[in-house]
């Protein structure tokens, strides 16, 4: 489906990107088109090393595509923009700052009209939303991995970005902590609506969190398959064990296998 609506918040249009390495050219993304509507949340899955992280860099403007265009809210992206929030697998909190100061970091960079008290209130409000009330003055090293990732999500959202880019944010967490954070994500979406893209390796995570799951082909990545995920107002973990979900997981699994074997052949 290369069609897209003009008013979609994230539009990726026929994007091709190639890395120049010492052994020659390495095409990572080829003719990729996809879009995310306003307040939509799309998960992107695909084989390891198929160019998913490159995609996040293209959307955030850290990289420029060789061909094609990326639009955020109708504007073509040529440089990084302060209307983007990012979180990675590594929470990358600054160890010399308290949790609340870490969350406030984007407000020190992005132009805004908040005074220091309002900035603090904004950070506090987000921290309590993810269950970190009372941990504001702690140092990152005093928190568990899951708590650090919660703080990292707050930092990504503190400046009310139009677009949230999540690059495997839960990849390094244990299964139960991960499920806790899925619920946190649902809370955040309800209270702080955002348009988001989630890169993940976890198919259950993709259908539990996203409205749409896009499967990328093996390198060079293009859109191979997508599926819309119907969402209830209050998603429950049990829904993952319904026959509908299981069928969806099976077909996604199949698509990943196809993509993997294609990537093997292209080597």
């Amino acid at each position, binding site marked *: 489906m290369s069609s897209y609506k003009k008013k979609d918040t994230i539009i990726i249009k026929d994007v091709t990107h190639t890395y120049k390495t010492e052994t020659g050219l390495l095409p990572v993304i080829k003719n990729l088109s996809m879009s995310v509507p306003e307040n939509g949340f799309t998960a992107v899955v695909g084989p390891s090393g198929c160019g998913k992280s490159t995609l996040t*860099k293209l959307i*955030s*403007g*850290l990289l420029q595509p060789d061909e094609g265009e990326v639009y955020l809210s109708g504007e073509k992206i040529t*440089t*990084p*923009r*302060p209307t*983007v929030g*990012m979180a*990675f697998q*590594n929470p*990358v909190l*600054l*160890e*010399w700052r308290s949790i609340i100061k870490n969350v406030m*970091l*984007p407000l*020190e*960079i*992005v132009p805004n009209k908040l005074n220091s008290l309002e900035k603090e209130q904004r950070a506090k409000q987000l921290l309590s939303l993810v269950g970190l009330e009372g941990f504001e003055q702690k*140092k990152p*090293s005093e928190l568990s991995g899951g708590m650090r990732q919660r703080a990292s999500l707050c*930092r990504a959202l503190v*400046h009310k970005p139009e677009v949230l*880019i999540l690059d495997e944010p839960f990849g390094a967490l244990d299964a139960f902590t991960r499920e806790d954070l899925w619920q946190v994500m649902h809370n955040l979406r309800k209270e702080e609506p955002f348009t988001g893209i989630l890169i993940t390796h976890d198919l259950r995570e993709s259908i539990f969190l996203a409205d749409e799951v896009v499967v990328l082909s093996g390198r060079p990545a293009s859109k191979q398959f997508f599926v819309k995920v119907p969402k209830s107002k209050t998603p429950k973990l049990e829904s993952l064990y319904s026959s509908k979900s299981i069928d969806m997981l099976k077909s996604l699994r199949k698509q990943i296998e196809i993509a993997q074997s294609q990537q093997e052949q292209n080597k």
Partner: protein
Amino acid sequence: MRHILVPLYAIIIFLILWELLVWLNEWPNYKMASPSDIWPAFWKFKGLFFQYGWDTLWRTVVGLFIAVLCGVFLGMIMGFSKVLREAIYPLLVGFNAIPKATVVPIIALMFVGQHDLNTILIAFMISFFPIAVSVSIGLSTLEPEYRDILRSLGASKSLIFWKIALPKTLPEFFGALKVAVTLAFIGTNLMEIVSPHGRGLGALFDSGKTNSDYPLMFAVLIALALLGIGLYYVVVILEKIFAGWAERSTD
């Protein structure tokens, strides 16, 4: 209280053992001076000790200060640019490999009579290397995600440096500074011992040698140790203030 008393007892026991060693072996003081010889030696020249001790101290500190400036500058260049690192690093390693004792006479001849300049120069040359290396490693091993977090918000390079790169490198920097302090003292003393008619504790040490005043030489060693300890702890305090976050609490 314990962490003051335990080291204090250790020092006292060390001095007693030293005194006993000399006394049991009946060593004359030109072989090994005992602690009881050192105090009179110090007292006899106490004016010179304070005057020369000050010379040694300020020369070392100025040399170290220049080493910090140059070391941080070189480290930044090497940390940010791969090409410049490849260009500068071999030169630095080569320069560092030259034993500084061999450079001392060259510098002494180059600026004959300018004792302060000579001494500061050697203190600087001997101590900037670990600082440059640690800063460059600190900067070049900065995880790309740290940079991306700020870059994706449109932060400038200098903002990324001040907000993230610099504070993140501070623990490595202070580790290197502790090494550099000791090295700078070596540099200062090498030059002070060699320079004729110079000043500083090194010169006092040398005059002890020429006049066969062996307890004086030992007293100079102790004075140098005290200065070194003092300067080292100044660095430790600075580290606590600026990079205390890197220390994990153990309780």
